[in-house]
């Protein structure tokens, strides 16, 4: 199945590796580990379990990163139709199970490990769109409609789960790739308009807890003890960090357990409380540099598919970054999306690293003099 000639040799990897990108990823992961450690150090209960597990997952992800570099992004793009079909099938199975059990089912369980197809789906969606949109550029209605229909189907399956947060990530990815792939601006505007009109329908389809999150986003004081309280407490955590922060392990909001799920959803609140405005600026800047480096690869390659792949990866990371930081300040509703490279959680870390490896693989590609599209 995998064609070795599409991958890279160790020599090529050494020659073409974007070391700045690797360093940025490592730096962000390290800051994430620090935050997870701090989140686990409560006054009443203290645990390093999360840190240890996250480090183990970091090791696994690093190994996968190297493997993906060897295999090369071209192999994955080549197999993307199959990957997309397989994840779509997983989503259908989950939805059927969810309907059978009358609850939200988002993952398959293998022993201790939860496998969440919607995470893998982000990778396969990017690969699929890159290939599809370079083959059939969405310059006309027919090609655009085909791309939207195929990708919209998996968005729909995810909304059924229901997992609104992931669905929004998919939409961001789809929109970004379509925009770069050459969709006329007029169509893009129409798409945005249709999206806005669909909001009331979405509201109708939401579960009680999802609506509650939106309501408390608009006015957290409506429900100060429940979900709204979380928003207020998170905002207090961020705000009280001030310019310099309270210092490592000195955050009171996190350590006194005012923050819910501090090591996952509210990881940035923990970080911002202890490292303040300076820390926040550093993290945002690191991410901005990372996006810049990923897209640098996109500019340097001549492979359209690779360009689309890179913008897809950036759109994904960008959306989750925006959402989780804005949420921590109460500027976006709570969706439960992890902050890339920061939040505790093995499978989401692994998937982000896979996406970054694909982007790195694009960055390596110009070392090949032969640009033959195979």
């Amino acid at each position: 199945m995998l064609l070795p000639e599409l991958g890279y040799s160790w020599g090529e990897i050494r020659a073409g590796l974007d070391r700045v990108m690797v360093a940025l990823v490592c730096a962000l992961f390290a800051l994430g580990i620090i935050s997870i450690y701090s989140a686990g150090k409560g006054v009443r209960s203290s645990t390093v379990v999360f840190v240890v597990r996250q480090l183990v997952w970091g090791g696994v992800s690093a190994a996968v990163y190297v493997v993906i570099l060897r295999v090369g992004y071209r192999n994955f793009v080549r197999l993307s139709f199959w990957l997309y079909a397989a994840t779509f099938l997983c989503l259908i199975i989950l939805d059927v199970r969810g309907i059978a059990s009358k609850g939200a089912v988002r993952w398959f369980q293998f022993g201790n490990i939860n496998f969440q197809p919607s995470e893998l789906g982000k990778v396969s969606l990017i690969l699929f769109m890159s290939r599809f949109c370079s083959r059939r550029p969405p310059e006309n209605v027919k090609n655009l409609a085909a791309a939207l229909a195929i990708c919209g189907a998996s968005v729909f399956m995810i909304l059924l789960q229901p997992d609104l947060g992931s669905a929004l990530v998919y939409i961001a990815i789809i929109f970004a790739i379509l925009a770069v792939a050459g969709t006329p601006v007029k169509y893009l505007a129409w798409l945005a308009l249709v999206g806005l009109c669909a909001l009331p329908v979405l509201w109708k389809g939401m579960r009680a807890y999802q609506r509650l999150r939106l309501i408390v986003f608009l006015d957290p004081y409506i429900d100060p003890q429940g979900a709204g309280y979380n928003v207020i407490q998170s905002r207090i955590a961020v705000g009280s960090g001030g310019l310099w922060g309270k210092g490592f392990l000195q955050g009171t909001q996190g350590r006194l357990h005012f923050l819910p799920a501090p090591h996952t959803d509210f990881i940035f609140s923990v970080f911002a409380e202890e490292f303040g405005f300076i820390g926040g600026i550093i993290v945002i800047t690191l991410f901005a540099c990372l996006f810049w480096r990923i897209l640098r690869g996109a500019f340097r390659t001549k492979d359209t598919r690779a360009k689309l792949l890179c913008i897809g990866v950036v759109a994904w990371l960008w959306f989750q970054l925006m959402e989780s930081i804005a949420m921590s300040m109460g500027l976006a509703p709570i969706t439960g999306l992890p902050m890339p490279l920061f939040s505790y959680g093995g499978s989401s870390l692994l998937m982000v690293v896979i996406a970054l490896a694909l982007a790195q693989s694009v960055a390596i590609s110009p070392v090949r003099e032969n640009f033959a599209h195979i």
Partner: protein
Amino acid sequence: MYKALDHFDFDHRLMYVRNIFIFSLLFLIAGLVYFQLVKADEYVELASRNRLRMIRLPSPRGNIYDASGVPLAVNVRTFEIRAYPMDIRRDEDYESTAGLFARHGIPMTSADLKERLEKQYVAPYRAISVIGNLTLAQVSDLVMDDEFSRRLFPSPVWRRIYPAEALAAHVVGHVGEITQKELEDQRDLYYQAGDIIGKNGVESMYEEQLRGTVGEQVVEVDSRGRRLRNVNYNDPQKGADLRLTLDLAAQREALRLMEGKKGVIVAMDVNDGSVKVLMSVPTFDPNPLTWGISARAWSALNDDPDKPMMNRATGGVYPPGSVFKVVTAAALLMEKTVDARTDVFCPGYFRVGTPARTFRCWRRSGHGRETIRSALRDSCDVFFYQNGVKLGIDKLIEWGHDFGVGEPTGVDITGEVSGTIAGRDWKRRNLKESWYQGDTVNYAIGQGYLLMTPLQLVRVYAAFANGGKLVVPRFNSAKKPEWKDVKVSKANMDIIRQGIRDAAANGTARAASGFGAEVAGKTGTAQNSHGEDHAWFVGYAPAANPKYVVAALVEGGGSGGSVAGPLVGRMLSYLLEHDK
């Protein structure tokens, strides 16, 4: 080869999109500037104080009454004193609080208090109970004390009590603190840890109606945790009351009748399915369960071999034995295997299969010639053996399903089981054996792979009594009667009714007669591989114009007539007498 858009400049678009992404991050930075630089002082202050405190005010549950308005579940107001872990966390806090209690005659050491509070800890702003179960007098006494800290919050707690104690335990059920699993499974996010929820019976079935709406009090406190003012107050709303069809006086009579026995008496109105009596014995007092029960008492209740917590009427399954013969009879008549005049000679045994197996009639000397009517009267096994084999198992099971065997009755209390009416497929799958004629023979008289709950049987007999309506039993008097029709013709129904009327008048079921009511009914003996057989009796009265149906099952009671018959006779007479 890939088609490339040669007229299209991807990099141009790419640059645009990249710039949008990068510049949008300024939005985040603007947010950080606003909250961390402009408003920093305000939030530092809020964090250092965290001044809002929320108290959840539990709502009183709706009362539950019996058919004549006697309370079965009510609330009494007790008081509890709560506090926030963030306020009470130093040793001197524990000591002063424990000292306060000790001065007012409530024994508690600071070590006890500390342990108690730490056990309940969830989050610093989540109120926990410092001490519970106080009277109004005790609370006012405490509050008047000069040293009563303003960091302590007295609040009313509704304690559920069941005045009928063990008499209605299986029907009413009980409440208890919500478990972690129930919290995770809830659909509408109503509950929080520490809330009270119906655990079983009517309390659980009608939870949403009974629970009411919780209230909430929001108070602002100063930096030392002392109350400054009320910010918000929502009254809790009491839940809706519920009046049951259950008759507590009749329950008491049933308990008296069952004295010294194990088993169950169920009585139901034949027409609308309202259950008058459901007495499962041994029973238990639900009161301790609602208020926290010691681990030892709980395991004693749970591990009791007599299973007092099990509702035998809906959760216990038994072979129905001969009481099932009415279903067999309906199947035989409707499938035209027999008619009213078909007779069978009963020599006291029946031989079937190769190699032949002998099945005995309960009367070893035989009954002689029997028609279906007299076979019901005499409970002649051979008649049903022989014609059951002719009818075949598949038809018999089909008719069993028509009478609701093997499916829940739909009664409105939780914990109901379906029983089994297992046929060929089941036997092949589970026992890896094919179906023998001998199995059909057993089925025809209610033995074999047939298991039913007493309530299912009550329902079957009610259908005969009311002329063909298989009613859904109900406890909520406000619930509309529901039923489905069984497909037995009136003429055939009458034959069976005559048969069981004869049985009670001068046949095997006459033990139920002589207590006042004119009964139609059937005895049964359920073979029990674990010990003495179970005694069954199901009957209704008045035989001519039936009003109530009663089933009695006595575990280990031996043969049905003599033990269970009088229970049903007396229960029916009692119900009819008190009906005026």
